[in-house]
C-alpha cells in the first residue's frame, strides 16, 4: 500500500513509502519547467499557424456579436464592447490553459514509458505540472499576447490598464492553468484502465469548450443553467479570468472568484493524485 502522496513506487517493487532521499528539490521542478518552455520555442511555424487560427475565430465571433447586438446597448448586463473583449481574451487564453487535446501522459502509459517516469525520484504530479507551467508561460508570451495584439489592431480591443486588476488577472490565469491541468491529468490517468482514452479526452474537450464560456459566455445563459455551470471547474478556466480583466468581478467578488479557482485546483489535484495511486497499485502497461 502506498501511504506517501509524495512518491508512489511502481508495481513490482515491494517496498513503498518515502524514499531514503529527501525528495526532489523545488529547483528541479523549476528546471523542468524551463526545459518545457525551451522545448516549445522550437515550434515556431506551428505557433504562427495557431495564431492565424485564433485571429480568424476571434474575428468570426466578433462579427457574430456585432450582428447580434446591432442596436441594442446592453444585453444581460454586458455591452458589445464587453462581449468583443471577452471573445479576444478567450481566444488568447485557449492555448495557455490548453483547452483541447492534451494526451502526453496517456501516450506514455500507452507506450509503457510511464513506468520509468514513476520510478524517478520526484513527485509525478508535480513533475508534469511543472512541465505544463513552462508550456503555459510559453503560450502566454508567444500566443496570448500576439492574439490580444491582433484584437487590438483589428477591432480596437482595449484592456484596462489598472495594475491591480492585471495582477489579479495573472493570478487568475495561473489558477486557470492549474485547474485545466488537473482535469487533463485525471483524463490522462484514465488510460491506465481504458484502452481507448480518447473517450474521456473528447468529453473533456467538449465540456471545456462549452462550460468554460468559450462557445457562449456564461453571462448569457439562462439563470438556472448559469447557476449550475458557475460551480463547475470549467467556469474557472476561461470565464473567471475574463470576468476579472473585464472588471465584472471586483473587490469581494474577485476574491471569491479566485478562491473558487484555488479550491477547484486543490480538489482536482487531490482527486488526480488519488487516482494515480489507485492506478499504480493496479497498473496495466500497454505496449512493448
Amino acid at each position, binding site marked *: 500500500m502506498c501511504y506517501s502522496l509524495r512518491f508512489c513506487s511502481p508495481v513490482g517493487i515491494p517496498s513503498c513509502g518515502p524514499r531514503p532521499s529527501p525528495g526532489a528539490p523545488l529547483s528541479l521542478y523549476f528546471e523542468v519547467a524551463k526545459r518545457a518552455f525551451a522545448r516549445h520555442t522550437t515550434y515556431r511555424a506551428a505557433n504562427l*499557424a495557431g495564431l492565424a487560427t485564433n485571429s480568424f475565430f476571434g474575428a468570426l465571433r466578433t*462579427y*457574430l456579436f456585432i450582428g447580434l447586438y446591432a442596436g441594442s446597448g446592453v444585453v444581460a448586463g454586458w455591452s458589445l464592447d464587453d462581449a468583443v473583449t471577452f471573445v479576444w481574451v478567450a481566444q488568447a487564453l485557449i492555448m495557455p490553459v490548453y483547452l483541447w487535446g492534451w494526451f502526453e501522459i496517456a501516450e506514455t502509459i500507452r507506450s509503457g514509458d510511464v513506468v520509468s517516469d514513476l520510478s524517478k525520484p520526484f513527485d509525478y504530479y508535480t513533475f508534469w505540472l511543472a512541465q505544463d507551467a513552462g508550456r503555459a508561460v510559453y503560450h502566454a508570451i508567444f500566443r496570448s499576447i500576439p492574439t490580444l495584439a491582433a484584437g487590438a489592431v483589428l477591432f480596437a480591443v482595449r484592456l484596462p490598464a489598472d495594475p491591480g486588476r492585471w495582477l489579479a488577472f495573472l493570478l487568475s490565469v495561473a489558477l486557470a492553468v492549474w485547474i485545466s491541468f488537473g482535469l487533463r491529468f485525471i483524463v490522462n490517468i484514465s488510460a491506465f484502465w481504458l484502452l481507448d482514452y480518447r473517450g474521456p479526452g473528447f468529453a473533456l474537450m467538449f465540456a471545456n469548450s462549452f462550460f468554460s464560456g468559450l*462557445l457562449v459566455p456564461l453571462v448569457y445563459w*439562462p439563470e438556472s443553467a448559469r447557476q449550475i455551470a458557475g460551480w463547475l471547474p470549467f467556469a474557472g478556466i476561461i470565464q473567471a479570468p475574463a470576468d476579472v480583466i473585464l472588471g465584472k468581478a471586483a473587490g469581494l467578488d474577485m476574491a471569491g472568484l479566485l478562491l473558487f479557482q484555488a479550491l477547484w485546483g486543490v480538489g482536482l489535484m487531490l482527486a488526480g493524485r488519488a487516482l494515480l495511486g489507485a492506478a499504480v497499485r493496479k497498473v496495466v502497461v500497454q505496449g512493448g
Partner: protein
Amino acid sequence: MRDAGRGGSPSPPGPLSQPWERGSPGSSDPGSSRPAARILWPDSLTADFALYRHFIAARIRAQMQYRGSFIVMTVITGLGLATEFIAILILFSQFGDLVGWSVGEVALLYGLASVSFGLAEMVGAGFDIFPNTIRRGELDQVLLRPAGVFTQVLASDFQLRRLARIGQGVAALAFGLSRTPVDWTLGKGLYVPVMLASGVTMYVAMFVFGAVICFWTVQSIELINILTNGGTELASYPLPIFHVAMQRFFTFVIPLAFVSYFPALYLLDRPEAGDWPGWMPLVSPLAALVLALAARVAWGFGVRHYRSTGS
C-alpha cells in the same frame, strides 16, 4: 470478372478476382499522356471504385470490432457537437434575432453546413490526416501498390463516427424547418440533393488541396483547417454579418457560402435573393465541379513530383 466488382455486393476475395489484379496502369498519372477527357474520369476511378468499397467495408468492420468504444465515441461526439447548437439557441434566447434572421433560419444554415461538412469528413478524412501519412513515410507503400493512389488515400480514414456530426446537422435542419416552413416547389425539392452533393464535393476538394500542399511542406495544414473548420462555422451564420472582405473571400475564392447561405436564400425565398442574379442557385454545383477538377489536377501534379522524406 469486371462485373464482379461493380453492382451489388462486393465479390469474395480470391487470388485473381480483385480489381487490382487486372492492373490499373498509370493511375497516379492522370493527365499527361492521356486524352483530356480522362482527367475528368480516369480509368482508375472506375476500377478503383470497387476497391474503395472494399476498403470502406473493411474499415467499418474494423471500427465495429471495438463496438463499445465506437458507440461511446459517437455518443460523446454527438453530445459535444450538440453543445455548439445549444450555444446558438442560448444566444438567440437573449438576442432574439441576427440581422433579420430568426433562430430557425440560422438553424437551417447551421444544419446545412454541418451535414455537408460531416459527410465530407466521413468520406474524405483520409486527405485530412495526410500530413501524418507522409511524415511517417506511409505514402511510399501506397505508391507501390498497383491501385489508384487517390482511392487509397480517400479510403484511408473513413470514420463511421462522423455520423455524429451528420446526425446533429440533420437534427438542426429538422429544428430549423419546423420553425421556418419552406414554400416547397419541385425546383427546390430537386435542388436539395444537388446542393448537398455540391457542398460535400467542395469540402473534399479542400481536403485534397490541403493534402497536396503536404507533398512539399507539412506545415500549412493548420491553415487548411482554418478554412474548413472556420469556414463551416462561418457558413453557419448569415454571410452579411461579416466584413466585406470575408464575404467576398468565402464566395469567390473558397466558395463555402454556396454550402449554406445561397441555398438558404433560395429555399427560404428571402428578400436578399433579389440582390443576386436569378441563376445563383446553379453556381453551387458549378463551383463544386470547378473545385473538384482543380483538386484532381493538383493531386496528380503532387503525386508525380513527390520526393519521399528519404531514409
